[in-house]
């Protein structure tokens, strides 16, 4: 073997090693950046509102909260997520019991309230997050065909402590905890789903 060939082989090998090292380094940096900008979120299309979000989070009060998508909400007077429709009716014929054990689902009349006939009112429903435990009872009650499916569970980043291995993800039997790019929009919103009543 000539001296020229040996030198060329040495240069070639060295360049390959440097090239692979550089590629690996860039890959590692990109992976680190990507994971730093990906967060856990609930995929509502997989979620069954099983209550494990409430019990599996490392926080004593889960980082998972109910969220109402106003564009899908029917603003019902008899909201099946708000009222326990199986409970005894009050003097106006409206069920007296509530679905949320924490009374975390609140409502207010949209526009001028008709005090004589509540059937003439539309109501806006919102979640009192400090009270919400993420149990999912309201979500289950709002699912079609009972309701419009406007309520869903969502991880709130003002509470989430971004564990390396999310304990809810480990517990979830439906694999409904997914990685999404920061700032962590619900997959439902990024998939472009719109209200259909």
């Amino acid at each position, binding site marked *: 073997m000539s001296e020229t060939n040996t030198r060329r082989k040495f240069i070639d090998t060295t360049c390959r090693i440097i090239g692979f090292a550089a590629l690996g380094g860039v890959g590692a940096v990109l992976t680190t950046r990507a994971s730093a900008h990906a967060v856990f979120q609930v995929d509502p299309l997989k979620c069954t509102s099983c209550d494990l979000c409430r019990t599996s989070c490392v926080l004593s009060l889960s980082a998972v909260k109910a969220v109402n998508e106003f564009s899908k909400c029917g603003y019902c007077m*008899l909201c099946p997520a708000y009222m326990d*429709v199986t409970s005894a009716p009050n003097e106006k014929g409206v069920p007296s019991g509530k679905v949320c054990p924490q009374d975390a689902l609140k409502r207010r009349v949209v526009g001028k309230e008709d005090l004589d006939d509540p059937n003439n009112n539309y109501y806006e429903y919102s979640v009192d997050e400090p009270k919400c435990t993420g149990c999912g009872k309201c979500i289950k009650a709002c699912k079609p065909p009972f309701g*419009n499916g406007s309520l869903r569970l969502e991880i709130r980043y003002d509470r989430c402590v971004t564990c390396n291995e999310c304990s809810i993800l480990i517990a979830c039997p439906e694999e409904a905890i997914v990685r999404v790019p920061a700032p962590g929009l619900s997959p439902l919103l990024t998939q472009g789903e719109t209200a259909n009543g």
Partner: protein
Amino acid sequence: MEMQARRYTPVATLAGRGTAAEFKKSLSGVAVGAAGVIHALGDGEVRVFAANGGVTRAWKAPEQAACLTVAPDGRVLVGVPGRVEIYGAAGNRVGGFSVGESGKQADVTAVKMFRDTILVADASARLVRRYDANGVERGLIGNQHKTGSFMLPNRSLDIDVDSAGVVYATDTGRHQVTSWKLDGAPVAAFGRFGQAKPEDFVGCCNPVNLAVAPDGCLVTGEKAAARVKVFGPDRALLAVIGPEHFDSMCTHIHLAVDSSGRIVAADPVRRTMTIFGRS
């Protein structure tokens, strides 16, 4: 006139799975024409069914078509977002008109015809719009409510009209069926929310569909649980066709009644139509 309680049983199924008439993707409306001929809307087509369940003719309808009706002269009116399209009995397009105010597309969820008057349910405006034969809007129905419109949390409004020209509409948020004169004057309302009695309407918003029978009975369709009820002319409950006949995920049961009182119920989840007769 007080009527006796009734019992309905399935006598035929149309567009069943595996049949040539099967709807593969959607079933969004049903209507009964002259001589009891059943028309259905689905898979982007209007299909006309023979008594044996076969399809005698079919033609393309707009993909987003949501409802249909058959006029006494055999023309077929199809409701699509912002429009009503009119076809001859053979399926040739013979006309059409826009629905709703300019700049706001109407969500047309039902269309019916009484003589030369075309009634269109506009769920986005939560009103019924009345048109003449030329497609010119002549008035509104439902705006005399205290709230100025129907309460429709489920964003769907179904209507029908009887032989006297009385218009019936689902007022789902109020758990009522309301009736109106063609000029928009209210006639009556019946129904209420409840769980305990079978005549009551449950959930957030029911009944979701309705049809008027030739004998003055009113047929209603409900969701969660999916069922059909028949009310007499005095609005006493005569029959319940139970949830065992429908998919539990139905949010609509499209209804039509033929001249002999048979109920045609279209289940959009199973994509089949069941004819119920009295037994």
